[in-house]
């Protein structure tokens, strides 16, 4: 592959200015997707603008809530104890992303900006109601992650904007979470994935979150599935109903990794398994 002009600004302002002055240039963070696509013959941008040298983008603050730098590597994020302890489902999803080598390079922002239906971090972040902070010439704006994805490979970020950070609120008190990913071998893109969050009080599901990957044009919440359980005890009948609804709620396609029917089926199984596993965690405490 012939090399492209490569810029490595060290401030946000410089990055935005470069983007404005270089028509057809593209931002690049970890490069684990961009480089693969360029090698595969994707249209070549006029230049690449690296975001990895910008401290504002690689810095994360994690305490009661979390502000995760969009250009922080997944490995750096996984090294934050407070993140692993506070939002274990996100850590679990990130830990299942590809390989240690890829996690050293890949960024959370890149994982989201690719807007791939299979982005591993997305379902976990959706379960936590994450927001994305965008910055452009007009300043900053905040979008719910659910609003961020438009269609496969396309976000609602403006051409002159970049993703600053991913913001996550403190988890609901008592929240239990899990992430289930269907893959062919251990190092694989998700064929279907489910992240789930549950709070139970007095045997009743009082807070339910499901999000799924690889089963719709973009990573998605499953509100109807959530509604089927919320306010109810997780009885066999309720779980079966949630499972049925989940299978209807997703809209997978058939590709060489898996058939639509199979993916639908897996989503149902995972919704059931996640619900049972999370409900079981409340059994001892009540």
């Amino acid at each position, binding site marked *: 592959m012939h*090399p*492209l*002009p*490569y810029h*490595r600004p060290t401030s946000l302002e410089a990055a935005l200015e470069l983007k404005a002055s270089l028509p057809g240039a593209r931002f*690049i963070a970890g*490069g*684990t997707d961009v*480089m*693969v696509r360029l*090698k*595969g013959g994707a249209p070549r941008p006029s*230049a*690449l603008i*690296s975001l*990895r040298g910008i401290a504002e983008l690689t810095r994360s603050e994690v305490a009661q809530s979390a502000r995760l730098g969009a250009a922080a590597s997944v*490995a750096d994020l996984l090294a934050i104890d407070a993140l692993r302890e506070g939002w274990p489902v996100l850590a679990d999803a990130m830990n299942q992303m*590809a*390989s*240690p*080598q*890829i996690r*050293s*390079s890949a960024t959370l922002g890149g994982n989201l900006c690719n807007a791939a239906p299979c982005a591993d971090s997305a379902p976990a972040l959706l379960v936590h109601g994450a927001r994305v902070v965008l910055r452009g010439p007009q300043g900053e704006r905040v979008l719910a992650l659910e609003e961020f994805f438009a269609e496969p490979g396309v976000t609602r970020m403006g051409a002159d904007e970049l993703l600053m950070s991913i913001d996550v609120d403190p988890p609901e008190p008592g929240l239990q979470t899990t992430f289930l990913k269907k893959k062919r071998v*251990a*190092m694989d893109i998700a064929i279907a994935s489910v992240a789930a969050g549950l709070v139970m009080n007095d045997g009743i599901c009082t807070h339910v979150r499901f999000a799924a990957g690889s089963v719709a044009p973009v990573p998605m919440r499953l509100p109807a599935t959530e509604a089927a359980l919320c306010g109810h005890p997780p009885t066999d009948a309720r779980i079966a109903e949630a499972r049925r609804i989940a299978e209807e709620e997703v809209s997978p396609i058939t590709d060489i990794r898996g058939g639509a029917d199979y993916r639908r089926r897996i989503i149902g199984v995972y919704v059931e398994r996640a619900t049972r596993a999370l409900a079981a965690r409340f059994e001892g405490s009540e």
Partner: protein
Amino acid sequence: MEVRFTLNGREVSCSLVGSELLLDVLRGPLGHRGTKEGCGKGECGACTVQVDGHPFNACLLPAAEVEGRAVTTIEGLAPAPGELSPEQQAFVEAGGIQCGFCTPGMIMASKALLDADPDPADADIRHALVGNLCRCTGYAQIIESVRRAAALRGEGS
């Protein structure tokens, strides 16, 4: 554009047009062909190097990103001529090497794991090597090599 970094403990510099990948710079102008290209897409790990101690796929990493950083390749492990590092020694002794094409990357990924976790459980080793494909060994003797490397490193310290 010029990139300067530490390669196996020595300062090096190399001129770049732009987005040249670290792997191509290492294998080309810097003449370090021990790092292999197995897939060019971050799927096989044959090109694994350490950058500031972390494992990276050199096939996806623009060389410009290692400015000022410390890069370690397979050529940088042996402590002295005729000697091997504990990781290399372990792979040689425990039968972790067959065709050898995955070996440099496998050893670099193992070293990165052991640098972070000196005494990993089997499952941790397998998880850490998930991005390093081998078609010859079925991995059994590779896992044993990593365990042996952990032991050799323990003896050495």
